[in-house]
């Protein structure tokens, strides 16, 4: 009964391990990069899930379908957590709301002076260059890694498929 309960809730247990690990690692700067802390958290969550299955399943190899379901569930939850962190790091909406929150009301001109397009582009460009996704070739910026372009093209395809834009 206890084992069944744990195996049912293990994606959430693994997510909790992921989150705690990521927060501790980044807050205390055990790794300096937010992205690396997310990777470490995910690995710990994955390890936790697999270890719990190994210890709690009556027959580990016979319950592969349960493991697969739980792995996928944890994958989706961890992906959601990654994007939650990413929203706080990069989302324009969150930054705009934060600027208004810290003020006593802002006009559009005041908002743009605190957080305008130039700042947005410079921050993102810096991040893309640091992550070696884009590089400088003389005065021009070019793709460094094809994977990031593939992601952009997938988004374009999905947008066309769903929104016909």
């Amino acid at each position, binding site marked *: 009964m206890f084992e*069944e309960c744990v*195996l*049912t809730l293990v994606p*959430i247990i693994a997510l909790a391990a992921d989150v705690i690990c990521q*927060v501790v690692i*980044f*807050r205390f700067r055990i790794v300096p990069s*937010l992205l690396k802390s997310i990777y470490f958290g995910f690995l710990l969550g994955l390890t936790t899930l697999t270890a719990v299955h190994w210890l709690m399943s009556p027959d580990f190899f016979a319950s592969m*379908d*349960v493991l*697969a*379901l*739980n792995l*996928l*569930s944890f*994958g*989706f*939850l961890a*992906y*959601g957590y990654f*994007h939650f962190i990413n929203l*706080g790091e*990069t989302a*324009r*909406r*969150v930054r*705009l709301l*934060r600027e*208004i*929150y810290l003020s006593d*009301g*802002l006009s*559009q001109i005041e*908002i*743009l002076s605190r*957080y*305008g*397009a*130039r*700042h*947005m*582009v410079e*921050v*993102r*460009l810096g*991040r*893309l260059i640091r992550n070696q996704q*884009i590089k400088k070739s003389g005065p*021009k*910026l*070019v*793709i460094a890694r094809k994977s*990031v*372009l593939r992601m*952009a093209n997938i*988004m374009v395809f*999905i947008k066309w*498929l*769903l*929104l016909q834009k």
Partner: protein
Amino acid sequence: MTPLLFGICSLISAWLIHFIWWRIKLPKRQTKALLIIFLGSLVGSYLFQPLVSYTLAQWISITIFFVGATLAYIITYSAVEVDSPSLLIVRMAAQPGGVTESELLETLNDDVLVSPRIQDLLRDGHTSLQGDKFYLTPKGRRFVGIFIFYRNLLSAEKGG
């Protein structure tokens, strides 16, 4: 049918409803519509219990799987609905010969990147306009409060 296969079939069904609805008419509040479709499909899948006879534990597993997948899809969809500046930069850099920083700044200006997001905040009820100033609504405070709390927990900077 295993719970995994049942969960996948339920997700595919929800996605097909989403695809057909979007082809008929694009909803104004797309995220809300997606939540209705996917969570409605989850509740609808419970009606198959007489056919599949799953245990409570199996239904809980399917629910966790389905809710996780729904949240993951809605988060990904938000990047499809609104053009991400990073992906716009990548696509411009992918043009033959690349792009200069000044070309980027000329194309990706306030009218493209910022003003529409400010209007979205009004439309979604996160801010209100009084005179010429924007203020947070209680909904906006709750929303941004979660992120401010988490950024403080991580000892991270403002972001953006």
